[in-house]
Each structure stands twice: as C-alpha cells, then as structure tokens.
C-alpha cells in the first residue's frame, strides 16, 4: 500500500517513487511497480536515456534550481516535484508559477517537503495541483481546507 497524497482535489494513492539518490542506488522491490522521479541533476545527466525509456517521467527540483532550465523538457515530463525544505521558504511558489505561466507545463506539479495543511491554498493558487503532505498532517483535514477563499485578487 503506497501513501496517500492529494491530487486534483482528491485523495489518491501515490503512483510515483521519489528516487533522489545517486544514479544506480538500490531501489529494489518498489521500483518495479512505480514510476520514478529523479533529481534535476540526474535528469540532465541522463536525459537521452530517460527520454528513450517508455513510461511516465518525473523530475524533482530543489529550490535552488532554475526551473527555466527545463524549458526544453517540460513537454516530455509527467510530473515535476517542487520542494519546500521549510514551510517558510517560499521559492517553490515562484517556481511553480514559472513552470505553469512561463513554460506552459500542464501536467502534475507536486509539492514535497514541509507541506502543511494551511499553506495548500496558496500552493494550489500558484499552480501546484498535487500535495505530498508532511507525515504528521491529516489528509482529510487538509483536503477540507484546500479552498478557504472563494474570491481572490490575483
């Protein structure tokens, strides 16, 4: 049983495996049934091979990464994970916004890291549509607080 995430306003079972360890690390077992997410560095180093492989492709960016480096890649990606190393670190909001508005990325953008119930509405409005909640957060309660506002200025 995989873990539950919020995606497109629903609780779903995660079908991805976050594999940010160095290339070749042992991820036996699960990796056979899950789609793998690699770091931006791994993606850039192994781009040709990963593009040649079949199946969904996911990249996780750290908040120091320049998302515009993915300009030529977004058409080939199914998932981009945006990392929030701390809830107060707001770079991920701008990264998500740039992925949507500047690069036109249409597939899943997922928040990972310190992802807290009360920030989901801001993340959602920045273009993030999936949330891998911090372990101690209640998924049901979080889902219920996804849209505290029915109006917005932006």
């Amino acid at each position, binding site marked *: 049983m995989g873990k539950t995430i919020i995606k497109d306003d629903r609780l779903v079972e995660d079908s991805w495996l976050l594999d940010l360890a160095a290339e070749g690390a042992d991820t036996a077992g699960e990796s056979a049934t899950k789609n793998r997410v690699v770091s931006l560095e791994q993606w850039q180093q192994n781009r040709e091979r990963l593009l040649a492989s079949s199946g969904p492709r996911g990249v996780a960016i750290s908040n120091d990464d320049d998302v515009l480096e993915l300009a030529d890649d977004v058409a080939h990606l199914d998932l981009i994970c945006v990392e929030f190393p701390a809830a107060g670190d707001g770079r991920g909001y701008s990264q998500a916004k740039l992925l949507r508005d500047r690069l036109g990325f249409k597939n899943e953008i997922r928040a990972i890291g310190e992802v807290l119930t009360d920030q989901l509405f801001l993340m959602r409005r920045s273009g993030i549509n999936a949330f891998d909640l911090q372990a101690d957060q209640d998924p049901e309660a979080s889902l219920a607080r996804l849209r*505290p506002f029915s109006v917005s*200025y932006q």
Partner: protein
Amino acid sequence: MYQYSPEDQCLVNERVAQFRDQTERFLAGTLSEDEFRPLRLMNGLYIQRHAPMLRVAVPYGLLSSEQMRMLAHISRKYDRRYGHLTTRQNMQFNWLALKDVPDVLADLATVEMHSIQTSGNCIRNTSSDQLAGVAKDELEDPRPYCEMIRQWSTLHPEFSFLPRKFKIAVSGSENDRAATQVHDIGIQLVEHAETKQVGFKILVGGGLGRTPVIGKVIKDYLPKKYLLSYLEAILRIYNLAGRRDNKYKARIKILVNSLGIEEFTRLVEEEWLHLREGSLMIEDASINEMQKYFQPFDYAKYRDESSASSLAEKLEASPAFAIWYRQNTQEHKIPGYRVVTISVKAPEEAPGDMTDAQMDGVAQLADDYSFSRMRVTHEQNLVLADVPEHKLHALWKGLLSFDLATPNVGTLTDMICCPGLDFCSLANASSIPIARQINDQFDDLDYLYDIGEIKVKMSGCMNACGHHHVGHIGILGVDKKGEEWYQITIGGSAEEDAALGKIIGPSVAKENVAETIATLLTTYVDLREEQETFLQSVRRLGVAPFKEAVYG
C-alpha cells in the same frame, strides 16, 4: 475612500473564518506552536512581553469615523481601553487574549477592516502621504495606486513567504512625506519630461533596520499601466534570489547591494518583459474607477462667507488658539480649508497612544468638521485633512477636551517612538520612558518654537521601528551588559533629502539622554545662521562641533 465590493467583503469574512479555524486548532492542540506562528504573524498577531499584540491594518493610513469608533470599541471590549498608532500608519493593541482575536477580526470585518499581512514575511500595509489629496504640492493623489497595490498584494499566493518582510510606500508629491527612499520599494508619482504624462519613478532596496540603506532608482519612469507587472517582477526576483540563510541579511536591500543595482535591474527588466503585457496590465478605465473613490469632497458645501473674518477674530481673541493654529494646522489646496494635525504626543502620554475616549472623540470631531475621515500619519499622529477655516476654533475646543491639542507638531516633543522594552520582546532598551524624560526636560513650548522644526526618532533596538536612522536626531537603545544605553545620531532625514544620521560618539547613559539633546540644541542655537533649521545646521557644520559639545 475606497468602499468594499461584495468580493472584498467576502474575502475578509473568509479570512476571519480561516483564522478562527486556525486559532481553534491551536488552542485544541492539533496545530503546533511552530505551525501556528507564521499563520498568526500573517494576521498581525505577535506574542509579546505581556500578551498577544494585534496590529490592525489601516490601508495608507485612511480611516472613516465609523472605523475609528470600531477601534475604540475593540480597545474597550477586548483590551485595556487604548491603542497605539504605528509608523506604518496602523493601529495596534497590546493586551488582547488570543481566544478573542477571531472575534476582534469579525468585528473589524463589519467596518471593512482586517489585520491581513500586518506582520510576517509578506507584503505589508502600503503606506503613503498623510496629505494625499489635499496637498498643494501634489502631482496626483497616490491613494488609488495604494489601493491597487493593497488588492494585488493581499493573500498573494506567490509572495506570502518571502525571505523577509516587504514594505512599499507611495508619494504623490516631490516633497516626500511618505519616506519612500527608506522602503523596500518606494514609488513616486512623476511627470514624464517630454510627454508630461504622469507615471511612476520606482526605487528599490531602501530600508532601515540593522543595515540602513537609501533606496536606489530602478526605473526613472514607468507608465501607470505597468505598475503591478513591474512590482510583480521585482518581487519574483527577490523571492527567488533573496537570501534565506540569515534573517538579518534577507531584506531586498542586501540582495540589491550584493548584485549591484545594474545587475538587479537587468534581472527585473528581463522578468518584466514576460509580464508587462499580461493580465496585470492596468487599463485606464480601472484607474478612473479607482480614482472615483478618492474624489475631492464637496468643498463648496461648507464654504462660509464669513469664514475668513470669523477665523481672524478668533485668532486675535485667543492666543492659545493662535499658537495651535500656527503649529498644528497647514495649508489646504482649497482656499478656506486647513489641514489639521492632531498631536497624539501629549507630554505625559506614550507617543502615539490613544484612549478609547480619544478615539471616539476624534471620530465625532471628524463627523462634525472634516467629512468623517481621518488619516494616521507615519509620525504617529492623526490628520483631519479637510476642515473649513470657520470650524477650526470649535474643533480646537473639542480637541482640547480630549487632551489632543498639544501645540507641538513638528517640534522636538513630536517624536516617533517605538513601544520599546515596555512592550516589545525584541527591544534592548526602553523608549517610552526616554520620551517622558525628554518631555520633562523640554516643557517650555517657547523654547521648542525657537528651536523650530526638528524630527526626533527613537527605537528601542536596532530593528529600527522608530526610524532612528532618519531622525534629525536619532536615538537608539542598546544593551550594554544588562544596562540600557543610548546611541545618538544627527543629520538623518526620511524626506526628499533622505540621509542616514551620523553617530556623534559613544552611547550615553539612560539618565543623560535628554541632557545630551539639550547640549545638541544649545550648540545649534549658538551656531545657527539666520532661518537655518537644526538639520541644515548639522549639514553645514558636520558632526564635529556637536560631538565636541557633548563629549568635550
């Protein structure tokens, strides 16, 4: 003034509900202290020395009498019957109970008020010129643009977790009463040299705090329609590139200084290219719509044939009224009207503190004599901006009855003063007792009038909430081995001639602050040339003669 649309009201109501939910979860223990902290901060709620402190937003300082009555009500019902005016033109309450805060916010929402983004690492209340709309030297009323910025920045999803707090000020006049040069972004309305079209000059990277910096020009002239897209570009670059490893190096001024203004400008301009023609474009029609909320009052209504003569008679008859008139009122762009500054600096009170009775009193006086509107100034006073001349005497009598007619506006005792050690958990030293010491030492108004215009600004720690760097005389409280000491600077200014004050020498002991100021003033009186203000003398003479006088 701006009136909420149903959508504006809905947002504020939903914010109350959201915060009620968050507070209840915190009190029930399902939301941790660490998780609750940023949430309450983003709603202006600090945990201070004694109790939570709630800062209520007063957008660009403008209040209706109805709103002022609500602030009085809140101070009565939930606090200790007073509130404190801040340098961001807001009002804060010092003695609330956390469990009451959602109810306070619900009460505020009934009069189109809130405390959204009055704290936290987000875009704070946009401040402006307290004379907006009535100043003769104004190019255009800045408030419509302040309101646009307020709306754009409210719950901005991308900019709610910036590296650090972010302050914007807008001035419509060349004479800068909004301290735009010491803001993260300073906006000045300017006329294009050739086309004569009004647009904006944009400054970036100014600020006080531990590293005071005067803002640098990033855009000489920006057409109005691009205001929000340009701000968005600056904020995005800052959000992505600003430092997050050290909160004392996280303000935009540090980023601008480390990249250099040329490189920072290049990054912003490049980002802006992608944004400028997008959805943030401001149409002329939207500007016109917003300007309708800030139209001049029907001034003809109160014009009285006998006004000039009746005012002259009253001035003649009452010297006390005449002194107040000279000191606390100023020219209005419409003949027959005056702008009145209400001094919230009575000698025996903490600067900027108002009781509930004073708040109610001012609300009534605003109803009677100034179109039911008032403004909070960044110098912690109030302004009734539109008083017919023939009503001034009655207004003065009313203010006297509430102890709000101290004729000291612009003088030494009209100080900016942070709450200091008495309330603030960040402070190193007290400020309110120093204000009292200064008031005790300088209780002779004639002496203050002889000294003339002087701006004293005092902070109880280097975070500089009291703007000490830009005081003509600045006072900074420092902690030396558990004792309170005070560092004195002179020659600072927050206006169009903005400058950072220079330290005169080693800090002085708590009991010697007023005496040191007395020495500075004596030196000034001895050395001044005719008509020269204290600031002008300091600029001409430099620090040396003042230092010599204080330290020998």
